[in-house]
């Protein structure tokens, strides 16, 4: 009986670990695949920062001339080339999401650099927004996604530091959204616009809806820290993460557009994948832990029942 239970526990633990790991792998894959699409097919959302004179002055220190920086028209300049290279780095990171293993240190290092890249993107967007703090915070999920995967692979998906990092990622994403949605910082017009287009409500109703959604975002932030609320908070976060990511294509795509506008909007959903895969990871982790706890207590009971009989 004991051997069977241990084996079942080990098997369950094994596939659960796989599931948890794949949550992070898939989330990270879509995140970088989306950004790769944004870089290689379109222009990334932070590009206007690169075109600034401050950037040129900085590169000038390394000997780049105006023509080398801007391109001549006949060829690309440093900025266009950098964007292309960054796009390919995103492709590599997307691939690494599935190929990285515990002992492949080079791959893990490259994945870690993905977090640095995402941090740079977040800072660029933070500057572009006029230094709005929520813009920086809400990228927490995407910034931490690669490092979370590295942690899961190197120190384990069930390690306390891994889960704590996942909790921080969720709190940052939803905290940032919440700050915008309740209007502590000016609510981005696209939030209201998407709500109006998708649900069809007027401006006032949409603002109220966003206010409620923002309050729920804050509840999620606290909820993931409270044991009896954390599973439901993570579940809600996952669903709301899917909804907000899907809102982009739902609001923007149309049968009348080339490719239905999919090329414009789908990648915006894709790179938001950590917004729902990390909450899913936490939800499953806490579900499995709960099951294991009850499974563990059942095992103990069995042991208690078994031991005497064997003694006999």
């Amino acid at each position, binding site marked *: 009986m004991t051997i069977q239970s241990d084996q079942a526990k080990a098997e369950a633990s094994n596939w659960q670990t796989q599931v948890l790991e794949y949550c992070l792998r898939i989330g990270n894959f879509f995140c970088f695949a989306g950004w790769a699409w944004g870089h290689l097919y379109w222009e990334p959302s932070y590009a206007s920062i690169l075109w600034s004179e401050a950037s040129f002055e*900085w590169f000038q220190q390394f000997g780049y001339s105006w023509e080398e920086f801007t391109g001549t028209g006949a060829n690309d300049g440093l900025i*266009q080339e950098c964007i292309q290279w960054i796009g390919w780095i995103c492709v590599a990171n997307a691939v690494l999401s599935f190929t990285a293993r515990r002992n492949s240190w080079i791959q893990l290092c490259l994945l870690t650099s993905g977090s*640095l890249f995402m941090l740079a993107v977040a*800072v*660029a967007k933070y500057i572009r927004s006029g230094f709005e703090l929520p813009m920086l915070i809400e990228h927490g999920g995407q910034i931490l996604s690669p490092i979370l995967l590295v942690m899961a692979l190197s120190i384990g998906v069930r390690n306390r530091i891994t889960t704590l990092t996942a909790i921080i990622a969720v709190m940052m994403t939803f905290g940032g959204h919440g700050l915008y949605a309740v209007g502590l910082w000016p609510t981005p017009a696209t939030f*209201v616009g998407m709500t109006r287009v998708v649900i069809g409500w007027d401006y006032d109703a949409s603002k109220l809806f966003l206010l409620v959604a923002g309050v729920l975002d804050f509840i999620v932030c606290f909820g993931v820290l409270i044991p009896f609320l954390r599973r439901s908070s993570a579940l809600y976060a996952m669903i709301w993460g899917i909804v907000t990511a899907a809102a982009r294509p739902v609001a923007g795509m149309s049968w009348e557009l080339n490719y239905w506008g999919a090329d414009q909007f789908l990648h915006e959903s894709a790179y938001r994948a950590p917004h729902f895969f990390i909450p899913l990871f936490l939800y499953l982790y806490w579900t499995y832990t709960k099951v294991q706890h009850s499974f563990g207590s059942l095992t103990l009971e069995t042991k208690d029942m078994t031991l005497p009989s064997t003694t006999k």
Partner: protein
Amino acid sequence: MRNRIFASLIILLIANTVVGQNRRRVDLSIPEVDRKDVICFALYTVHDQTLKLTAQLYPLKNDEVRLARLEIKKEGNWVEVAQTEVIEQGWTAPFRVAKWDDANTWQYRVRHGEQAVYEGTIRRNPTDKDEIVVAGFTGNSIMPAHGGDISRQDILDNIQRINADILFFAGDQVYDHKRHYAAWLKFGRDFGDIIKDRPTICLPDDHDVGQPNLWGESGKISTLRGAADGGYAQPGLYVQEVERAQTSHLPDPADPHKIGQDISVYFTNLNWGNIDFAILEDRKFKTGPAGRVPKQGPRPDHIRNPEYDPVSVDVEGAILLGKRQLAFLKSWTQDWQNAKMKVALSQTIFCGGAHIHGSASGRLHADMDSNGWPQSGRNRAIDALRKGFAFHLAGDQHLATIFHHGVNEHRDAIWSFCVPSIANLYLRWWAPLEAGANREDNMPEYTGDHLDGFGNKVTNYAAANPEKKPAGNILNTRSAGFGIVRLNTKTREITMECWPRNVDITSDDAQQYPGWPRTISQLDNYHPRSWGKMKEFQFDYAHPVVQLVDNETDEVLYTIRAQNSFFTPHAPLNREFTIKVGKDSPDRVITTSAKAKK
């Protein structure tokens, strides 16, 4: 080790950018003002004996009345002529006074409560002046990095020196995408001293309504970053507030039906000093390119591929001016009541007027934010305008240019003058790869006949290209400045001047940007080289309105008020025309078989 160096470089770049950008931030806080100064500034126009004046207020306190009064000075006494409710969303007080006596100049004052007073002058309609002077502006960046923090006093001084009759702000008066009200108050503090004493036309453009580019698409909601999917990124209420602040003092709209999100339209005309200005809002109905045209570059509105087929982006369903605007233009070009010359005012010019975009970005083959796209819509707009010999004054491009536009052949349509930015946020250059054809003697290679990135026929006569690597004088190396247009109703000549910042434009040694000044005739706005001349017609009264109608198509070729009591029509060869004339409208047929000869 390499990773560490790479990481250090990234951190340094981020820190440098953050510090650099922080250094360049602008304080847009709304100042706490004394209650006597609660009226920030006032804008007005007078048209068809109707005064429309909008006073812009600082925020009122809860216990203050929401009523503003307008008074004028009659025989030494202040007399109240109108009252209006202050609209809290944007704190505007729009007055409308019918049966206005525009034959006289009036001192006015706007009052609020017992203390607040703002004074100015309502000018008389300068119908007796031979020359009407229009000062044109665009791109009012307030960012220190672009010289936006440098005082506008030079502009104010120059406008006072030349005593401009009318001011035209073509767009981007405000660059802040979330705080239009605060930025608009700053605009008022900067320019109020010249605005309060003369009619002023403001057209809100993309940045004014809080987005980097604007394809209004009849009020659709835009959800795509960059707004190339068409519509407005900011809520309709925000756009309404912007338009109320900037345009509620314009003459009543020609066709006031609203568009999506309850956003108003303001396209109309203003007759001042016998110049009939069409005030167009060329973005309001324009469709967005995203998903509508094949992708040709890293942005849905940018064409980077010089090998692309321009016809491929001139797609069915893409609109530039809406049907209602075209209908307005059709009637406007035929209406010459109290008008000797016509000028179209809009946000931007009807062509792709630049090749190199951005302070540091490379060559862009075509930009669908310009009015060169969609080409069919562009041709319809120009065709409508040339039927009234309208000269086109616009802004937006951040690059001053003079173009003579073509529809069927080069130089067969209107001239446009795009004025330079007050402070230039985003640099552009007119730099065609090939030298222009049919250039004037000793003119730069970038002038002459060209096709723009959309294949539109354009002839360039001047471009105030910024320095390739701007340095030193932060305004003028970036080609900042303003435009002056002198419209002579006696000689029917139009003179374009393009001035840099911080010069006294009345001094003998003041230099304009290369290529300016340039003077054209009113008739140059529709005088194809392939046309011929008819015989001279004599009339028994001066300045008749003459209209040519094509006998085959029954379409009006053009309508114009003649400069004298005689007129020699020009027209296409081998076609027969009916000529109509009249004192104020072409209501009498004088011939049904007029033909032009080479």
